[in-house]
């Protein structure tokens, strides 16, 4: 049995401008100890997917319209609040993008850090502080016994992100959801943070879901990657084959447009047009209006994610029918 199984998750936001279908029929599984990357541009639904499964979607305006999120046998979307409390923050932990805003500026690091221990493990305060200090040392914070008494503003961005990681890992979770954990930090700090998550993963054997817009971050870190576009998963594969044998035009276009993979001085490939407006109905493939391979059926046909090569799934109709090679 997989650790986490999402089936047909649909989340939308009911706004004044209509219903925005942020996540539209997303299904995937995550095995124990596996590292899954989710990439996509802003507005593709990658963060909303994570927030939905953690129950962090503000309702209203958000609404989870349907689907199941089964974590270790428990459906997180319709279990009792008490059951959810025992899983969230203990067995599933989350790291957010911006370490500047995800720590409470009024509360000492100490109290924020050990809160999950006090809630989930019911241990003595002094014992919890000891484990808090150990956790900070583990993430490479110098002089942890003293620094634990500081407030968030006394730390740099990289340090704060380390505190966030220490806090997420302190209950030894089975699943860590990292939502753009390195977007707000410099490359050198990014390398430190990714290394830290990788090491913790080896030690604890936890599964990691890494959400990022940066193909580079995902390529070195994940076993499997899925690409999202306009609220749907358009391609899902082992990291190697996703990068070397793309099976969806969007994935290929994305790779062609990053400077790191292109020879210097050449014009970069640009995807024409703009991402679609999710508050309008999108019949067929949402990428069709921008796709160089699009045919008539792309804008009408039903789009499903199908296996097109061993362990490689694509949502492109024409790839599925072997009409094109991307």
């Amino acid at each position, binding site marked *: 049995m997989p650790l986490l199984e999402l089936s047909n998750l649909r989340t939308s936001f009911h706004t004044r401008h209509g219903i925005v279908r942020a996540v539209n029929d997303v299904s995937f599984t995550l095995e124990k100890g596996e590292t899954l990357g989710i990439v996509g*541009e*802003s507005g593709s639904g990658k963060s909303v997917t994570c927030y939905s499964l953690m129950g962090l979607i503000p309702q209203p305006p958000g609404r989870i319209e349907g689907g199941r999120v089964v974590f270790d046998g428990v459906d997180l979307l319709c279990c009792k609040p008490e059951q959810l409390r025992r899983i969230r923050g203990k067995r599933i932990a989350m790291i957010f993008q911006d370490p500047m805003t995800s720590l409470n500026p009024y509360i000492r690091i100490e109290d924020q850090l050990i809160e999950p221990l006090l809630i989930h493990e019911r241990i003595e305060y002094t014992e919890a502080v000891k484990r808090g200090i150990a956790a900070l040392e583990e993430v*490479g914070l*110098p002089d942890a016994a003293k620094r634990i008494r500081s407030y968030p503003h006394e730390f*740099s*961005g*990289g*340090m704060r992100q380390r505190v966030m990681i220490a806090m997420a890992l302190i209950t030894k979770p089975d699943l860590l959801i990292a939502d753009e954990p390195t977007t707000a930090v*410099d*490359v*050198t*700090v*990014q*390398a*430190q943070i990714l*290394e830290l998550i990788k090491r913790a993963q080896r030690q604890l054997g936890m599964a990691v879901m890494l959400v990022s*817009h*940066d*193909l*580079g*971050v*995902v*390529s*070195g870190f994940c076993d499997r990657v899925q690409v999202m576009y306009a609220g749907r998963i358009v391609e899902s594969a082992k*990291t*190697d084959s996703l*990068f*070397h044998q793309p099976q969806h035009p969007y994935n290929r*276009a*994305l*790779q062609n*447009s*990053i*400077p*790191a*993979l*292109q020879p*210097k*001085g050449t*014009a*970069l*490939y*640009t*995807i024409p047009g*703009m991402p679609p407006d999710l508050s309008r109905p999108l019949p067929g493939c949402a990428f069709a209006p921008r796709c160089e391979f699009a045919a008539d059926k792309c804008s009408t046909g039903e789009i499903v994610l199908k296996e097109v090569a061993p362990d490689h799934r694509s949502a492109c109709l024409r790839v599925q029918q072997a009409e094109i090679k991307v």
Partner: protein
Amino acid sequence: MSDAFLQLQNVKTHFPVERGIIFRRHIGEVKAVDGVSLSLLQGEILGLVGESGCGKSTLGRTILQLVPPTEGAVILAGKNLAQLKGRALRESRADFQMIFQDPYASLNPRMTVFDTLVEAIRAHKTVPSSELANRVSELMKKVGLSPRFLQKYPHEFSGGQRQRIAIARALAVEPKLIIADEPVSALDVSIQAQIINLLAQLSREMKLTLVFISHDLSVVKHISDRIAVMYVGKIVELGPATDVFEKPLHPYTKALVSAVPIPDPEREKKRLRVILSGDPPSPMNPPGGCAFHPRCACAVAECSRTVPGLDNFNAARQVACIRAKEIN
């Protein structure tokens, strides 16, 4: 270097740090830019990279005299901008423009695109009013936008389109030098590619000198002729873009390059990674000698005493490391 178009001579920008509410006392200085010398040819694209807080944005602003330099000279086409004041400075501003990072914050939300562009032109009176409309339409076409958008407001555009408008505004006065401070950092990858292509093409066609400030090395490598790497207010390495990226000389550049993730799983797994420990030092109180020595794997005792100058490594490349010859 007589044919240099833009020349910086030992430019320093220090910000005073004061404490106390009634009796302000001077307790130190943030040396944001601390002795930078550079020269650029006309039409050259210089990439300026470094971590946040290294002074790259301040250097950009200092060149444009948005922040007055504490010391040193900024010479643009023979004129020392640091000595210009008032009217003379305002007039010379037509020669240099800036593009900012966040196109959501840098455009006035209450002005139509037309007004935004016309304001820039009027400020320098380069076009008679009968030709304004024509000139503005031309600008829009130049940055790949349709002139029918002219009466729209910034909120009606996407991030990429707004950045195009910001570029059009910078081009409105026909500048010779543009400083682009992280122009693509706020944009998605597919949009980023469009803006990079546009800037490269404009610089080629109009012989624009471009200083491209970014923390993203792979973007900078792609667009620049030369790269300057900054660390705590100083340039530590300067050279042709491909060389700096592929064979970095300074230990800091090596760490920086190795930290950039490559979107290719095979290469990514094979390569050696230098992971720096700790954070960059505070520019208020940088370590003595070479500012990088506490984090440097190659540091020797001498490094904490001698401040390395930016010396020639070979004809094209300069590096500020006393052990550069030994370790390379």
